[in-house]
């Protein structure tokens, strides 16, 4: 069976929908009646995107979004006028040390994860069956998102926290033994919960999944589906997880995402993929481009490595052309997604240097 492709007319339709959505979002964020202080101020100093942006290609007129804005500015500058007075959630990025990047939001995570719920099977995540999240909770969007995902499926969710900032500190201080003890502490808690409660769905990170799978038999513990993300997964790692940890009988859903984008789901793996996962952004709410790292206006050819550029387009948050610290292979559209995908995502520069992503 060859890798399925998407008909050109479906790709064109998706592009037209993206352009239409973009116009609405630009109008929303740059109209004084609805927009937020940051972008209105930006437009006053630069140009009015409502006049300049008519299709997605025009987004090149924006410079790359600087993540320092999310560190240095008070969150109120990102509140669209239409949301004024409504308390917001403050979500922080994962393993940051020092002042974290913050994204505010109201309902985006619910929209993203309700949509994701349609992409996972009832066989692997039975409706009503409890979930366990073992990973970074705290001020992260993921914590509420996973609980929402469980809830929309009629389920509840148990939580075991892992603080990635502490892990990052331990690793930079070369306290590897303490990092291992901490990971064992996290995994022990998860194993205890699994031994005493009926749980069928699991969200965790690849490293924690491996550690948990070495401690208990996940199938015997009742796990039928694993939704995994947080760090990169090479094809061999995915194969190891599927064949050896999940014994080819527990459903596996690798994902790529972060606080700024939301969640990019992967297409189901088939033998031709050779365990190389391809992720598709929740377009039109977020768009991923794979760009030439030295000439970021240009996308690279399909099946070529490039740097990930993220544009987020929701009424709660507008973020044009943010260069992620990841590199990836640009992949062609593949059903059910009529837009580009990103494959084998890994930290930017991973070929040149060994990058520690942490034990989580």
């Amino acid at each position, binding site marked *: 069976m060859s890798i399925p492709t998407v008909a050109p007319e479906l790709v064109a339709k998706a592009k037209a929908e993206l352009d239409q959505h973009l116009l609405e979002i630009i109008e929303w964020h740059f109209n004084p009646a609805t927009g937020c202080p940051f972008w209105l101020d930006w437009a006053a100093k630069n140009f009015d995107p409502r006049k300049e942006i008519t299709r997605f290609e025009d987004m090149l007129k924006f410079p790359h979004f600087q993540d320092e804005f999310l560190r240095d500015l008070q969150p109120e500058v990102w509140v669209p006028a239409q949301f004024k007075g409504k308390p917001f959630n403050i979500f922080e990025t994962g393993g940051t040390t020092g002042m974290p990047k913050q994204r505010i939001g109201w309902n985006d995570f619910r929209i993203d994860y309700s949509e994701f719920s349609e992409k996972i099977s009832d066989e692997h995540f039975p409706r009503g069956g409890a979930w366990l999240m073992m990973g970074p909770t705290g001020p992260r969007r993921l914590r509420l998102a996973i609980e929402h995902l469980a809830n929309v499926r009629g389920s509840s969710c148990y939580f075991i926290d892992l603080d990635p900032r502490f892990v990052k500190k331990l690793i930079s201080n070369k306290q590897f033994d303490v990092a291992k003890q901490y990971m064992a502490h996290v995994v022990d808690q998860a194993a205890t919960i699994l031994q005493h409660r009926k749980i069928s769905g699991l969200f965790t990170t690849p490293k924690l999944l*491996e550690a948990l799978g*070495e401690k208990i038999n996940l199938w015997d513990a009742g796990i039928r589906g694993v939704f995994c993300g947080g760090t990169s997964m*090479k*094809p*061999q*790692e995915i194969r*190891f997880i599927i064949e*050896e940890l999940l014994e080819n009988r527990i459903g596996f859903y690798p994902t790529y995402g972060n606080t700024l984008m939301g969640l990019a789901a992967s297409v189901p793996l088939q033998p031709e993929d*050779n*365990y190389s996962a391809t992720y598709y952004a929740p377009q039109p709410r977020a768009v991923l481009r794979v760009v030439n790292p030295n000439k970021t206006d240009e996308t690279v050819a399909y099946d070529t490595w490039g740097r990930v550029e993220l544009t987020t387009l929701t009424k709660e948050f507008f973020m044009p052309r943010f260069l992620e610290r990841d590199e990836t292979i640009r992949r062609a559209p593949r059903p059910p997604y009529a837009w580009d995908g990103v494959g084998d995502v890994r930290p930017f520069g991973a070929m040149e240097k060994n990058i520690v992503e942490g034990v989580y």
Partner: protein
Amino acid sequence: MSTVPHLPVLRLGRNYESLEKFEVKDHKTGEVKALVSNVNAGIVRRDLGKIGSARAALKKFTCAQLVELSARAGDLFLNGTLPLGDKGHTQSPQQYIETLSCTSGLPWNMVRRNMDKVHFALTNMKFVLNGLSRGLDLNILDNGTGEQFGTKLSYFPTCAALGLVMPSNSPAVNSLWIPAISLKTPVVIKPGKEEPWTPYRLIQAFIAAGVPAEAFGFYPTDHEGAGEILKLTGRSLIFGDKNTMAQYANNPAIQLHGPGWSKFLIGDDCIENWRDYIDVIAGAISDNGGRSCINASAVVVPKYAAEIAEALAQKIGPFAPTRADDPNARLSGFANVKMADFIDAQIEDGLKVPGATDVTAKYRNGPRKASFEGGTFMRPTIVLCDSFAHPLSNKEFLCPYASVVTCPQSEMLHKIGYTLAASVITKDAKFIEAVTDFAEIDRLNIGPVSTMKISWDQPHEGNMFEFLWKRRSIERAW
């Protein structure tokens, strides 16, 4: 059939092709000679969780049977055409020599000598085990208990398997682990990145001889995977530099094979005859391309240091790179050119400190780091040092290198520090008594004996039998 052989991971009897592979290349041309599957630590951990079946597979044999199979494996290793990977390739002895030579930099004659050493150890396993166990009747290991030397004896295995984190610099180091098979202990090997050939060929020879494939693990893996091998096998050997050694010091489950800092010491009574010893000292410095931990890296003398350094430099300084198939090849190329750069820089930095002279420089007619037909070589270096305080006086490098240091006989043992192999040229009974009592020397030779001389029944570094089996007291009512 693919033109490039693929070496799979051997998961205790099962071939496994990973989606991650690394290339082993000709050190001169860059031609890919093999693809080697590489696995993550998780696979190592999972397999070692099931290592009991590997030990059970060996337990079905008596030690005597395994000794016989080892001898057969020795002949196959030296003379046989054996499987090379999982894509239908085979490897003759000459192909092994040529491939190992072109990826490691060792010339053919040195590969052959290393092959002979491994073959000797395999075909003389009875003699080797007799030495290691001090004549123990190996039936006692088969039965768990027995009587010998007029006493009851009982032994139990200390580990699930023997783990090995192998280096790339010298194939003969594989002879260290081969007694494990006759001692009924499975081996779990992480091969050196540039030298997967020898452990793979040895494993294939053992399997072809009739040893169960389940007894062998061949796991090219990363740093974390190597750590798991060290941690989970119960007993392991590691090879590395001073920093690696420091990490595992004081761990009795890990036998360390680091720098040897092997030396010649000449006593006051013999120093006037120094000319008689130049040949044996020069050989000890330069044999095997100077790559072994038992190559001499310092010559400690009460006087005539300048003259001795000059004579050694005159003898080995002119050694130059040759083609790998030259039967008189003396130098080994560097598969990792950065290592040659590092060594050259270390020596040059040391020479900037007053009190040392590169006596070989004038005999080289060229730089120490030399290029030849696309390969990188380090030519021999003899450094005359005025005392042990000099930073170059007690260094070991992966090439023919030695210092010649003046030191009064009475101070030698205070200055030399740890010495893997020491050849002490003296007939002075008091000096011999002093060096015999000196705890920092592992292998001691008295008289003009090369530090490179090894005795298979007298290990110079650790005793594999004592490492893998432990005696317990026993009393049986029936």
